[in-house]
Each structure stands twice: as structure tokens, then as C-alpha cells.
């Protein structure tokens, strides 16, 4: 077997096209943002343990190498899961043998803790390059955040059409990082809840409604430049971040048992859309623009406190997000309720204008909030794409 196909030797022969789908790792922007949303997610946040700048760079280099291989369906390490010295543990854990790339993308982000610790101390000589908007998100009404599900110095978003491929990637990156970084928390997701290309169907969240209809799509070049990608000059202190984005992360528990006791008409009133087609209550089809002024019997036909009215760009200074969240069910709580909800992931050019005000409005005014509980929260700066020979975020250290 040739060295360059080490690792997952069967994937070329593997059946479906979904399994054979591979997205380039290198590019102007990191993959996993405008990439058509895959079905499965494993998201991990890490604490950096080392205090050495060199070790941190070494970690990013090692992660980059492994990511470049795994996203192409190869093994995490250069040797492979079964090919190496039998006296050594393999450099790939093996559970993805034969599964193909399955559309795997790995997207890396940097948390506020990388630039200053809790006491404000500069850990790695990066403080003067901290992106302006990179700081812990503020407390929003109804936040019930768990420290063990929030924050992180580094993050990896692994998306794939096969859950085992996504888990394999995170597991191997964590293994490679041992010593330099430790997993702070991680989250599995399924049933993508948004679409990032127009050809994808808008999926449904666990309330049973279509979600993310107004999402920025990959085809919308100007909207991506306006709302998603950080442009050169946006943040003079953090020019290294140009071509990147900010990732807003929120773990939103849904009180599904209570929701399920709501009459259909009320559910549609909370969302502002019909459940069957996703059309706004002002009519048309899913993609019709909502008419918030259209009169109904008691106020607008789309209630002013409905989700669509509260978060729509029209009521938020025309800001848009690129959402690529996932449903999650982490078993059940002690009380037998599903520990379930939406793992919200949104890429924006500036959280101060594109996320925080919208979340604040939603937390205060959205009728849906009665059925939500925010249990996790994090903000990351996502560096631009990696050029061949570079490691992810290299320009930060230059």
C-alpha cells in the first residue's frame, strides 16, 4: 500500500457518494462554515494547559496536519491505524477505517482565554493581538449557564455525514493534544437545523418547526462579505483574523415536554410561521418575506413577540448570521425530561453588532423563551483558512 493512502484504505471502494464526499482542507476561509451543512456534529472546547507559546504553536501544527489528513479520508497520523510498529500504540484510533471522508470538515477557533487568563495576565504574548470583540458573552436574561458547558481557549467543530467520522476526528485531536490541551467540554449534535446552501432543504428543530430560513447561504457572496467574513481593516489590532469570522456558541435546552402540551395554533403564534410549510403567518411559502405590518384581528397577524418578528433582520438593523446549529439529545434528566435542544452555532463578522443585540432582544421579548433554557455559551475567533504549508492560526503568531 502506498504511504499516501495510509489509514482508511477501503474508503475509495466504499459505497455511497455521501461517504466519498471530501472537502478541501486548505483555502481562503476555513472549511465547515459555508460548506453545505453535514448531518452530524461533534464540537469540542479545550483548555490550554501549557504555558509555553512554542508548545501551543506545536499543538496547532500537529492539529493542522491531522486535520488535513482526516478531512481527506486518511488516518490522523502519517502511519495509520494498523500499519505501524506493533510495540507502539497506533497513531490513528481506527474506528473510521473504511468509512471514507464522509464530508468531514474541521474548523478551529480561539477563545478569549488564549489572550489573557482570568486575572488578565497575558499567557502567550498575544494580548496586543486580541480581537476587539473576543471576550466572554454577557449574561442574558434566562441564562442558566453551566461552567462545564461554557467557554474554552480553543475549539474544534467537527462536522460529517457519519457520526463516527466526526467523533473519530475529535477523539484523535484530543489524543494528539494531551499535555498541551485538555477537553473542557464537548457536544454531539444530529439533524442539522440549518442550511448553508440554497439547494438544501430547511430542516426542523425539536419543536418541529423549520429553522434558519433567513440564513446567509454560500451563494450569497455579498452577504457573506457583509455579515460573515472579517475584512482587512475591520480590526487593526487583529489583522491576522481577516478572512476569518466569529463563532457564537449557545447550548439551548428546549423544554420539549411543556412545548408539546401547547396547542398547534399557539405554537405557530410563538414561532410566527406555520408548522407544516414554514410560511410566515402573513402568508406565502417558506421563503416569502414576512409582512410584519399585515394587520390581524388582535394586532399584526405575525405576533410582535413571535420568534420570527423578534429576531428577523428587519428588526435588528438588517444584520444576518450564518447559522449551522444542530439538534441534540443527551439522554434524559433526573426528572425524566429529555435533555434536549438546539446547539446553536452562528458565524458572524462582529458579535457586538450581529449577535449580542439580537440575543438580548430575544431573551427579553421572544414568546419562545418560556420554553427555552440556555445552559452553555462560548465565543471564539475563527482564524482564516490555512494555506498549504501553514498551520491554522499561524498569522496570529507571526
Amino acid at each position, binding site marked *: 500500500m502506498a504511504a499516501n493512502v495510509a489509514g482508511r484504505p477501503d474508503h475509495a471502494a466504499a459505497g455511497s457518494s455521501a461517504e466519498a464526499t471530501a472537502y478541501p482542507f486548505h483555502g481562503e476561509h476555513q472549511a465547515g462554515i459555508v460548506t453545505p451543512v453535514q448531518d452530524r456534529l461533534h464540537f469540542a472546547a479545550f483548555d490550554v494547559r501549557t504555558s509555553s507559546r512554542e508548545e501551543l504553536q506545536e499543538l496547532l501544527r500537529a492539529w493542522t496536519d491531522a486535520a488535513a489528513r482526516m478531512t481527506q479520508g486518511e488516518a490522523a497520523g502519517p502511519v495509520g491505524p494498523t500499519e505501524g510498529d506493533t510495540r507502539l500504540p497506533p497513531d490513528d484510533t481506527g474506528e473510521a477505517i473504511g468509512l471514507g471522508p464522509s464530508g468531514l470538515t474541521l474548523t478551529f477557533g480561539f477563545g478569549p482565554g488564549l489572550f489573557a487568563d482570568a486575572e488578565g495576565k497575558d499567557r502567550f504574548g498575544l494580548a496586543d493581538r486580541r480581537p476587539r470583540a473576543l471576550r466572554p458573552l454577557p*449574561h442574558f436574561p434566562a441564562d442558566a449557564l453551566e461552567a462545564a458547558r461554557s467557554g474554552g481557549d480553543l475549539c474544534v467543530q467537527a462536522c460529517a455525514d457519519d457520526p463516527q467520522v466526526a467523533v473519530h476526528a475529535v477523539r484523535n485531536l484530543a489524543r494528539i493534544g494531551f499535555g498541551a490541551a485538555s477537553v473542557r467540554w464537548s457536544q454531539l449534535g444530529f439533524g442539522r437545523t440549518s442550511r448553508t446552501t440554497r439547494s438544501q432543504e430547511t430542516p426542523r428543530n425539536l419543536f418541529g418547526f423549520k429553522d434558519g430560513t433567513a440564513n446567509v447561504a454560500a451563494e450569497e457572496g455579498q452577504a457573506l462579505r457583509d455579515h460573515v467574513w472579517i475584512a482587512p481593516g475591520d480590526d487593526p489590532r487583529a489583522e491576522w483574523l481577516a478572512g476569518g469570522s466569529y463563532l457564537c456558541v449557545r447550548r439551548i435546552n428546549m423544554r420539549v415536554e411543556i412545548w408539546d402540551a401547547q396547542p398547534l395554533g399557539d405554537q405557530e403564534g410563538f414561532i410566527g410561521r406555520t408548522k407544516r410549510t414554514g410560511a410566515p403567518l402573513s402568508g406565502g411559502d417558506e421563503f416569502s418575506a414576512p409582512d410584519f405590518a399585515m394587520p390581524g384581528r388582535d394586532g399584526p397577524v405575525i405576533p410582535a413577540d413571535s420568534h420570527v418578528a423578534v429576531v428577523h433582520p428587519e428588526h435588528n438593523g438588517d444584520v444576518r448570521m450564518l447559522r449551522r446549529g444542530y439538534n441534540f439529545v443527551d439522554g434524559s434528566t433526573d426528572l425524566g425530561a429529555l435533555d434536549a435542544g438546539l446547539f446553536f452555532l452562528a458565524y458572524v463578522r462582529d458579535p457586538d453588532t450581529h449577535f449580542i443585540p439580537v440575543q438580548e432582544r430575544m431573551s427579553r421579548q421572544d414568546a419562545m423563551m418560556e420554553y427555552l433554557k440556555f445552559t452553555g455559551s462560548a465565543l471564539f475567533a475563527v482564524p482564516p483558512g490555512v494555506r498549504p504549508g501553514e498551520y491554522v492560526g499561524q498569522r496570529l503568531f507571526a
Partner: protein
Amino acid sequence: MARRPLPARLLAPVLLVAVPTLAACTQNADPSDSGDPRALSVNSSADACELSATKAPAGKLSFTVANTGDKVTEFYLLAEDGLRILGEIENVGPGVDRTLTVSVPEGSYVTACKPGMTGDGIRGDFTVTASDEQAEVSADEQALVAAADANYRSYVQDQTDQLVARTDEFAQLYKAGKDDEARELYPRARLHWERIETVAEAFGELDPIMDAREADLSEGDEFTGWHRIEKDLWPQRAEDYTPMTPDERAAMVDQLVEKTHELDELVDDPATTYPLDKIANGSRGLLEEVATGKVTGEEEYWSHTDLWDFQGNVDGARVAFEGVRPVLEQKDPELAGELETRFGELQELLDQHKVGEDGFVLYTELNDEQVKALSDAVNALLNPLSKLTAAVLS
């Protein structure tokens, strides 16, 4: 408290059940194709109101109204006089369809589509013929509805009166620094609030001032009301807590007293009425409060007196159920029986945690198994309770 006040539209009067069509396997299925003569379709366009049939056998009729116009439309089923409304469906947006379900006895009727929601609408005659499923017309239903309104109104007023009295008393103790006595009275005064919580929340601005929990606030919001005082009386869980000064105490509790009196005036206002759906939705709403805040011990974070609130919500939900029960007994006696049983089971569990005449153990004294049992009983009740409104209006 509710994380936010319940939307006003949940409490606004509506006359009949308006349920959007269930997601069907086929889109835009024409209900008249089903062969069921009681399933009718209505095409409401800008200038026409076309029914799939103008005749149907008596019983439970469903009208699936599709709006093919470009304005919000409404559909009405009116008595022969063209005035009395038997059923209506509002807020049907362009391109949207909604289903009206209504029980109709034999007779002559008038249908009307009202594109743009103005004028008399586009009217047509409609005939209901005799059938085996002749809908029951209860001569005294009107009287039952009026009685429910009056009874519930006096219950709410009575609870508010007691809340005012106990809040006044509480304020005196708290201001005088009689903290032990204030702590004794705290859950007993709040019991009356919890019994009518959904009504109080309907008066928009009061709830956030009187009953907000600290975790529900934004940075910069002022923390006031019952739970602010709770924290001052039970500061054990608070980090680096600075007790309120006597002046701060007085200002805080005087505001609470003032708002409680405001609430009292609002519920005494003759314009405040309680149609069946408002009472029934209130019953469900109170139990949802239990499910989201009380059974999890989140409501009384500082004092752990959650079980008093729990009891208050259950009392209120039960009174509301009993209020509409005479109507429910006519429409769906089986549901009435199930609710009776489920309320009984839940109360029996709560009784196990009673201490003395009117007290409860603290939430922190419950073990996991006991909390789970309470939660299960709440869910068992919530499920049939979610059908109450539709049942009494059918």
C-alpha cells in the same frame, strides 16, 4: 414567575376552537375528497367565498379555510339571523389554511368569508340536515359559562384580597426587622400570589417588578420584588452579600405593597372578565409554572420554600378546572374524570410533604426519588390538562 409574561393573546377571549390543519401526508389535500360529508373546504379569495358543499349532516363539522387572496381573511359560521356567531376562525394569512371545528345541530345557517377583516363579509346560505350525530344543544350552556366567569372572578378577587392583607403584614414585619416572623409569613403570603399567578402575569408590567428571579435579569436590570427580599432574608447561598439597610428595606417592600394594591384594583375592574378559554388556559398555565420552576426548585432559590408555591399553583389550576367542569361534563365527561384522578394523585403526593397545618418541608429536604415522583405526577396531569381548553370550547 414565568420567564416572561404569558403572551396576552393566550388570555384574550376567543369563541371557538381554531385549529390549523394537521400536517397531512399530502400537501393541500382537499378535505372534501375524503368523502366525509362533515369535512368541508372553503376557498376564501379576494372576492369570493367558495365552499366545497353548502349542506352537511349535523354533528362535528370542520371547515378547512384556504386563503387564496392577498389579505388576512376570516371565516364565520353564523346562525340563520346572520348575527349570532357559532364559530369563527381569524388571522388566516394569504396562502395559509386553517381549520375550524364546530358542533352544529340541524338548521339553517349563514357562512361568511371576510377578506381584509372588514365589512359583513361574503355571505352564503348553509344547511345542516338531521343525522344520527345530532349535536347536543344545551339550553343552559350560556348560564354555565356565565357562572364560570362569575365564580372564577370572585376566586381571583378573594385571593388578591388575602394577598394584599398578608403582604401588608409582611411589610410591617420586614421593616421592623422581625426577620424570623417575616420568614414564617413569606411562603404563606406568596401562596395567594401563586394561586392566581397566570392572571397576575396577564397584567404585563407587574410580574417582572414583583416576581422576577435574579437569574432572569439582564446586566443592568434592577432586581426588585419578592425574590429580592427573599435573598435578603435568606442570604446563606449568596456570596459576599451586603444586607439591605432599613431604608433600602422600606423602599423595596413599599414598592411591593404598592404593586400588590395595583393588582387588587385591576382584578376588581369590571372590564376584567374570564371566558371559558381564559380560565382553562390559566389552569394549564399554572401547571406549566409548576413543571418549569417549582418541581425543579428554581423558584425559591434562597429560601427553598418551593413546595408552598407548588401547592399554590396546583390549587389555582384545580379551581380553574372545577370552574369549567360543569361545561366539560357535558362535552367530555371522560376527560373530566381523568383530570379529577390526576389532580387527586398529585395532591396526595404533595400531602406527604406537609408539615403542620399549613406548612411544607423545604425543597432541599426532598430526595431525588421524591422529586421524580412529583415531576411524574405533574406530567401525568399536564397531558390531559392540555386538552381542556379545546374540550370545553368544542
